[in-house]
C-alpha cells in the first residue's frame, strides 16, 4: 500500500534557526497537504499543493511539491516558539482504482527553545 515517510522524525532547534521537514511518498500523488498539530491539539490544515514543482509561501513557511509529485518539503525560516508542534504531510495517491483517501506522513516533531 501507499507509504508516506517524513524525515527527520524529530528536530530540536534554537529560536531563530531554520527548519526543514521532508516528505517522501512511495507512489505518485495527485496533491499534497500539510497540517500542523500542536502538543495536545488536533491537526490543523496549513496548505495544499497540486502542481508539479509548485512552491507556495505563507509568511516564514515555504512549501514545495516535487517535480515527480512524489515528494514535498516544508521549510520554516527563523523559527519561533509558536512553531512548536508536529508537522504532517498528507497526500492522495493517483489512480489506485479504489476510493481516494488522504494518507498521512509519519510526521516531524519540532521543538524550539530560546
Amino acid at each position: 500500500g501507499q507509504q508516506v515517510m517524513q524525515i527527520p522524525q524529530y528536530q530540536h532547534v534554537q529560536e531563530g534557526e531554520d527548519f526543514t521537514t521532508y516528505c517522501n511518498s512511495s507512489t505518485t500523488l495527485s496533491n499534497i497537504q500539510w497540517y500542523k498539530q500542536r502538543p495536545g491539539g488536533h491537526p490543523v490544515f496549513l496548505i495544499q499543493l497540486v502542481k508539479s514543482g509548485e512552491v507556495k509561501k505563507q509568511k516564514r513557511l515555504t512549501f514545495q511539491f516535487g517535480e515527480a509529485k512524489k515528494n514535498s518539503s516544508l521549510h520554516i525560516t527563523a523559527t519561533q516558539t509558536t512553531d512548536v508542534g508536529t508537522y504532517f504531510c498528507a497526500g492522495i495517491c493517483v489512480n489506485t482504482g479504489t476510493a481516494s483517501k488522504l494518507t498521512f506522513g509519519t510526521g516531524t516533531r519540532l521543538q524550539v527553545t530560546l
Partner: protein
Amino acid sequence: DTAVSQTPKYLVTQMGNDKSIKCEQNLGHDTMYWYKQDSKKFLKIMFSYNNKELIINETVPNRFSPKSPDKAHLNLHINSLELGDSAVYFCASSRKGPIETQYFGPGTRLLVL
C-alpha cells in the same frame, strides 16, 4: 461556534467494555472521517463516509462500527475493547472529499485498562 465537535474528550475504561464516541460537524460538509492516532503520533484513516454512505473501511477490526445517522454526524462504536485500542481518535470532515481541506475535531483520548 465549534466546527467539528467530539464527545467525550477523555474515555478511560476496562478491557472488554463497549463504548461509543460521537462526532458532529456544523460546516455543512458532505464527507466525514474517523482517524486513529497511536502513541507514536501516526495518523491513520479508519473510515470515511460521504453523505451517510460508507466509502472507506480501512481493514479495521469489525469490533469497530461507524454509524452516520445524517451527514452532520458520524459516531463510532467499539465493542469488546482491547488494550491496543488505546489511542486518540479524531473525527474530521471535508466539503466534498479527501482532496479538500480536512477539519479535525479536538480528539477523544481513549485509555483501555
